[in-house]
């Protein structure tokens, strides 16, 4: 069953007088629980594609369906709710709130607050192996640890989809691979649908499906 469906997706940018097709007529079908690796060099349009699928940007043309629902036409507020409830984001620069501790960064995303909030925050931090560093500020954590906090944050609302934008880009290869392995575990054990954008070929071996993008097109 197709969980994420992308059809004839086009995203154009104006750059002076030129129009650039960042995403050029892309079709994509992804089943629930699949691991998709999008590989491409920088400027290939892979990040733009991820932003469109994640509901952060709107396409110039085309259709994106998540779990059977069209998302390109819905309101900003609904899109925000969709992102909060169904999608967990992981960024190349980790994007933790610098003034909040690891635990607070995770807590910041909680959609429906209950009395179990703290326990759940503890749980997800345990899952990424950062239980003891819960009260540290991001600046006191290593890059790998920061990215694991980001993963914990992406998991707190138990989203079905995890979108990762070059999650290893700012990490050494060993740490990077450990992050990919966590994502792989989430995919296999927790049945999360993972879309990972990278320029590293080695990710292929963890992916169920790999597409390579060049100049906005699948090659």
């Amino acid at each position, binding site marked *: 069953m197709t969980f994420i469906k992308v059809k004839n997706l086009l995203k154009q940018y104006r750059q002076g007088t030129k129009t650039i097709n960042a995403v050029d007529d892309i079709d994509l079908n992804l089943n629930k629980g699949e691991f998709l690796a999008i590989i491409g060099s920088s400027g290939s349009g892979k*990040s733009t594609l991820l*932003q469109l699928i*994640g509901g*952060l*940007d709107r396409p110039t043309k085309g259709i994106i369906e998540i779990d059977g629902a069209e998302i390109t036409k819905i309101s*900003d*507020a609904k899109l*925000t*709710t969709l*992102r*909060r*409830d169904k999608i*967990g*984001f992981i*960024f*190349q*620069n980790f*994007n933790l*709130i*610098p*003034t*909040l*501790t690891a635990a*607070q960064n995770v*807590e*910041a*995303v*909680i*959609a429906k*607050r*209950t*009395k179990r*909030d703290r326990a759940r925050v503890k749980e997800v931090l345990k899952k990424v192996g950062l239980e003891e560093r819960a009260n540290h*500020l991001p600046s006191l954590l290593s890059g790998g640890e920061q990215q694991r906090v980001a993963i914990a*944050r*992406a998991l707190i*609302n138990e989203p079905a989809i995890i979108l990762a*934008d070059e999650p290893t880009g700012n990490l050494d290869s060993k740490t990077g691979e450990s992050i990919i392995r966590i994502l792989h575990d989430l995919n296999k054990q927790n049945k999360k649908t993972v879309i990972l954008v990278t320029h590293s070929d080695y990710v292929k071996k963890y992916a169920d499906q790999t597409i390579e993008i060049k100049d906005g097109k699948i090659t």
Partner: protein
Amino acid sequence: MHCRMILKYFKYLLRSNFKRSYFSNLILLSYDHFIKIKKIMFYLRYLWAELTRRWSKTLTISLGLAMASAIIITIISVSQSLSTAQDKVLNPLQNVGTDIMVSRTVDSEEIQNLDDATREEALNDNRITMDFSKLGEPGEQFANDTLMPGSMLTFASSETEKLDPSLVKTYATGLVLNVVHQEGTIPKLAAEIETGGQRIGFSQSFQVSDADRQAFMDAQQKAMEELKSKGIDPNSEEGQKLMRQSVPNPVSTVNGEVEVPKSVIRQEIGSFSTDVKTENFTLAGVDTSKNDIGLILPNQIVEGRYLEQPGEVVATRAFAQKKNYSLNGTITIAEKEFTLVGIVDPKLYTMSADLYLSLTDAQQLAGRDGRINVLLVKASNADNVKLAGESAAGLFPGAKVTDASETAQQVSGSLVSAASLTDKFIGVTSIIVVLAAFIIVSLLTILSVNKRVREIGTLKAIGWKNHLIIRQIIAENIVIGVIGAALGIGLALGAIALLNHYDISLSATVAGTDNGFGFARRFLGGENNEGVTASVQLNVIYTYTVLALGSLIALAASLFAGALAAIKAAKMKPQEAFRNLE
């Protein structure tokens, strides 16, 4: 609210079957009950983290707000204190328990327009003897005091009986006199000029009546006939001569001589150069029967005591110092001895004098029994001041009524300039400060939000709705505003304490009343009446209203800045999260 909470608590206790301890129950209850608050707890912690961990930004913006707030509080407080000080000074009549002052002042320019009676009175009131020879022989020592009411003409004290008792609560009379004190050696200044003794001759012709003329004509006719009968032609030379001899011309002339009576005119000639020293000062006869109204009041005595009986005099501190008078010493005025019983420190008011004595003494010295030239009136209530003034103006011809607003115009000095300066610039300064605060704080706040563009983008990307972000930024700014307001109050109180510590004093001068004596003073080389100068300590007082206003400005500026920053943040796109900025 509380009832529901307590009910809920008991329900909760029953449900939990008292398995837990009371204490943990309480905690769990609160936890349960305040789950909604708990929901915002995170936002509060985020707020706290944001403000404390970016403390330099928090401090910078708060200080900016504090400065603006403190400046506003300080300038408004200073201005208010100035006007309070000014009010005290600008209502000099109030200092002597008076609403209106009645006098019969004649301006020197007006003297030509006066009716004869008043002009005569003005001249009589101010007649001064300049003939030193009447004081003794040239070369002798002399001291002479001349007392004059000046242009403040006297009027009968019985006029006060006409005051309307329903409008007037109380009143006091006074006689303010200018004293010219001259002492030295009697100069040989009078030239004695002998006049008269001249002999003056005169000649006068008289006309004749018609009857005489007729008689003359008849006689002439008769003579002519007599001459003709004698054979002499009356028109010949001889005939004419004979005619004049027999009929004399009726037009006659009287000739005489008188001698001008001899007299000696004593006249002063030009200005004189002798050792005569001229001084002038002001003397006031005080209505000692009143304690709450009068030219001076007992409570203004700073040393010694108030006037109690005739023969006593009270001097202002300045005059006593100038003249080296000591308490209980003797002062001679117009050859009469007085005892200095007190030193007075009169507040500013227009009718000031150097020496004060009882009204009867003053009247006797000036030879003006039953006459006064100042009437101080306290109206029966504040609403009646105007009416009382109008009724007093009709007491006698030429009555002039002075009230507080008129005396205010006579006050000048640094206090008045400072007050009018603040009056003029307080508005402009406040607007500039408030504008500057709004602009600077807004710029700083927007700058700090711009720096957080990836953070805000990330929050949006991971599901924060705009209203949450707006709320967060506004909340941050409210707290910054509160800190700024608190710091502002602190700074302002510090500034006010500092201003008060430095003992800034301002002066105010009440122009002396021109008693028409200026001419005599100039002529005699005396000093000018410079009026009374009071030094007013600038005591800056703050009110809670002003503190609240200053705080409000800090809060408003931070809210305004927060609103701008929130709009900016709301416009930020979630994909800013992907921005590569360090």
